[in-house]
């Protein structure tokens, strides 16, 4: 009941200077709203980058033989028995697949190019871009399909196409060359030409036969959306004891860096706008306390406790922040909904292709981010009221009323 009294008093006091309070609240709204919209855009960008990085045959985690990343080749392969790793079917994992990936040279009648020759289990590639890529011709029928898929850009370079034959040459375990002819089952059309030129796919057993091995070079694991990475990583590390479990951040350091930069950008923007805002808030609160010196002195004289004086200033600050934050969140949501269909970035898409950002930016607003921004703003509103509250509580009733 004493609390409601203070709230009521603070509320009335706020509207003593309607204009000043409204300006302050507007500032808070704009700050919170802009942080949320910017946050949603950067999250969208991050997600798009992460998805691209994960889609590009990485997965969230990739299990490889030690040293494979420095010197990829069939020498760094390992035998893999899925039945020995029941963790792969556990909570949080959307899917996994094994592959044999070796550097190779592809030769058509006219051209020769260096590529990654990847033996896959077609049915479980729904965890990578291959699962829903557009294909001209046919998809691979199964792990022992001996035909290949080539990217659109590569097919153009090689001046070849669906149904034609090409030759692939790679190194065996002994270091000697292995060579075999393959028919093109389909030509795929990926998001970036980089991918199309890099990867040639076939059934996993066809690569194993070519190299005369019964091993794989990687197991790629994809998480269910929203699942935290560290605990799953921990479990995988424990089950693949002699192998390396690498994260997508290890595999795509550039994307990981961009990811962190986006985080930092939001934080910096938040600090800048909130810093300016807190400055204004402290100023206004101090002004409000100074204007009311005599009144506060009178209140202390008739028996209001110091704590109540402090609480009054703090509550005034918190009410201002709460109104500003509430309207700011609504503004942020409206801004987000307005942009929710996505922003067409195709005008800049040449530059973006390198970074792995898709030409359409879909903003993402996460509840946890909204909660964080709201929480931090409230904390700042509280911190901002400490100094003005100290000023208020130092007021001596007699000094104040003698003015």
């Amino acid at each position, binding site marked *: *009941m*004493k609390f409601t*009294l203070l709230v009521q*008093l603070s509320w*009335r*006091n706020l*509207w*003593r200077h309607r204009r000043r309070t409204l300006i302050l609240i507007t500032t808070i709204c704009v700050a919170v709203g802009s942080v949320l919209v910017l946050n949603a855009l950067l999250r969208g960008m991050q997600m798009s980058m992460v998805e691209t990085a994960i889609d590009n045959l990485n997965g969230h985690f990739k299990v490889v033989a030690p040293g494979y990343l420095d010197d990829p080749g069939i020498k760094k392969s390992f035998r893999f028995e899925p039945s020995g790793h029941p963790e792969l079917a556990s909570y949080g994992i959307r899917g996994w697949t094994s592959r044999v990936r070796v550097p190779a040279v592809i030769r058509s009648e006219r051209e020769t190019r260096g590529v990654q020759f990847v033996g896959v289990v077609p049915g479980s590639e729904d965890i990578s871009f291959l699962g829903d890529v557009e294909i001209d011709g046919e998809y691979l029928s199964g792990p022992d399909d001996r035909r290949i898929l080539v990217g659109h850009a590569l097919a153009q370079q090689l001046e070849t196409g669906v149904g034609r034959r090409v030759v692939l040459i790679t190194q065996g375990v002994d270091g000697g060359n292995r060579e075999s002819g393959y028919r093109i089952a389909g030509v795929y059309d990926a998001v970036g030409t980089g991918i199309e030129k890099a990867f040639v796919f076939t059934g996993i057993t066809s690569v194993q036969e070519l190299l005369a091995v019964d091993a794989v070079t990687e197991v790629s694991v994809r998480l269910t959306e929203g699942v935290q990475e560290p605990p799953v990583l921990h479990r995988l590390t424990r089950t693949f004891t002699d192998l390396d479990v690498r994260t997508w951040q290890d595999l795509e350091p550039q994307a990981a860096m961009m990811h962190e930069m986006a985080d930092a950008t939001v934080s910096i923007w938040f600090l800048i706008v909130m810093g300016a805002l807190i400055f204004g808030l402290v100023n206004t609160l101090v002004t409000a306390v100074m204007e009311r010196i*005599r*009144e506060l002195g*009178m*209140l*202390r*004289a*008739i*028996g*209001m*406790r*110091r704590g*109540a004086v402090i609480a009054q200033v703090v509550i005034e600050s918190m009410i201002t922040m709460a109104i500003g934050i509430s309207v700011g969140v609504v503004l942020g949501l409206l801004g987000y909904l307005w942009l929710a269909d996505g922003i067409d970035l195709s005008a800049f898409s040449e530059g973006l292709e390198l970074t792995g950002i898709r030409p359409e930016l879909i903003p993402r607003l996460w509840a946890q981010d909204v909660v964080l921004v709201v929480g931090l703003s409230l904390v700042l509103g509280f911190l901002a009221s400490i100094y003005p509250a100290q000023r208020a509580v130092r007021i001596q*009733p*007699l000094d104040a*009323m003698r003015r």
Partner: protein
Amino acid sequence: MSDLVVDCQGVTRVYGDDVVPVRALQGVDFGIAAGEWTALAGPSGSGKSTLLHLVGGLDRPTDGTVVVDGKKLNDLSESQLSDLRLRKVGFVFQAFNLIPVLSAVENVEFIMQLQGIGPSERRERALSVLDHLGLGDIGERRPGELSGGQQQRVAVARAIVTNPVLLLADEPSANLDSATTLELLALLRTINEERGVTIVTATHDPIVMDHASRRVLLRDGRIESDESVSSPMLPV
């Protein structure tokens, strides 16, 4: 001795420092019995306000003891003094008595809220006091919409609604014209006589002195004379 509402012994209050001490009160012995209306008189600077503040627990003596309602104020902590002011003393100051953002009735309720009295009881008591003091029709107005005299009367209502043992008023008529002053004094007379509230007014206004039942004249921080008035002037 214990039936005194206020008992001051050897009260001294020195302001400033050792180099330039200002002796506002110099060894005042002074008691007030329940139901008295005492006027502290004397020229400006004689120590009236200082004495009033010491009695109300707003200030502490440099020397001597102040006992109010059996409690020795010297021994009380800051927050205990705050509590004493809230529960035992009603204050009416020269100006700025009311909270500008609250209506008259809310101002009266406010002090009961500080005491933790529930909403229905305090509204009832506030309305009844305002009514009793003839302020029933201005209860919803804010201080800015009231005349100086009305504001002071609301302040009196605020001061007595908690049934304090003591009502202290420091120059309550300083900002009022003489007609309005007489209205205020009539009001104080009513609550002194009908409710038996003990009142101390500090004033250099002769009209105020004429209404009190006892006149204590201060000069240079000492009591010069102390006389009871058998038949104080009747309200006009």
